[in-house]
């Protein structure tokens, strides 16, 4: 049986110019079933409008965190509650 279980709603948060380009600070989304990694989530987000396309224009630059921990594009998003996208950090 090939039954997809719908993923639970996920909170996304955006910072700095990623937030400005997306046009939102945060949102609740339901990615399509089978969205397994950060990279796949980004691919789906880019289909949602020009703002997202612009924000993730250069995917290698945008960083991600899963539940407050840095995550690579190949990281699994299974069980994630909050995923953040942001530019390289410039604190200190």
């Amino acid at each position: 049986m090939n039954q997809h279980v719908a993923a639970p709603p996920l909170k996304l948060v955006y910072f700095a110019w990623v937030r400005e380009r997306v046009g939102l600070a945060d949102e609740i989304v339901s990615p399509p079933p089978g969205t397994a990694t950060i990279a796949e989530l980004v691919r789906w987000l880019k289909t949602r409008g020009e703002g997202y396309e612009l924000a993730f224009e250069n995917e290698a630059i945008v960083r991600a965190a899963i539940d407050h921990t840095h995550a690579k594009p190949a990281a699994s998003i299974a069980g994630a509650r909050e995923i953040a996208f942001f530019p390289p950090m410039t604190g200190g």
Partner: protein
Amino acid sequence: MTPVVRIQREDFDLGAEVAALARGDADIGAVVSFTGLCRDESCRLAALELEHYPGMAEAEIARVAAEAAARWPLSGLLAIHRFGLIRPGEQIVLVIAASSHRREAFEAADFLMDYLKTRAPFWKREHLADGSIGGWVEAKADDDRAAERWS
């Protein structure tokens, strides 16, 4: 030794923080501190606006501080990072490391600053002297290289 990590809008007092960290511990022989200030970039800037990711900022700096504490024998470790609008001359970040001997304190403070710059979720935006809002500050490859020295 539990590192102290604070993310705050308010300014901080280096002398008071050093005194609090060293109080009651006569085994401390070395205290090293680093204070990062806002520059005006040759009068170009009116302020820097620091955005951060609440929750992750604390968690990530605490992880880096725990790594430093595991790596060097420290008696005290503190990191304070401010957010909000910070004007030229004002303080942005403070790191203090205390140890029995100076080498450990110097290295731990250096390590904590290098990792804080590349891993702590903070972003700077320029507010220009003419009153307009400038762009987001770009990350420097030098900062990545500085952090790589420790791995």
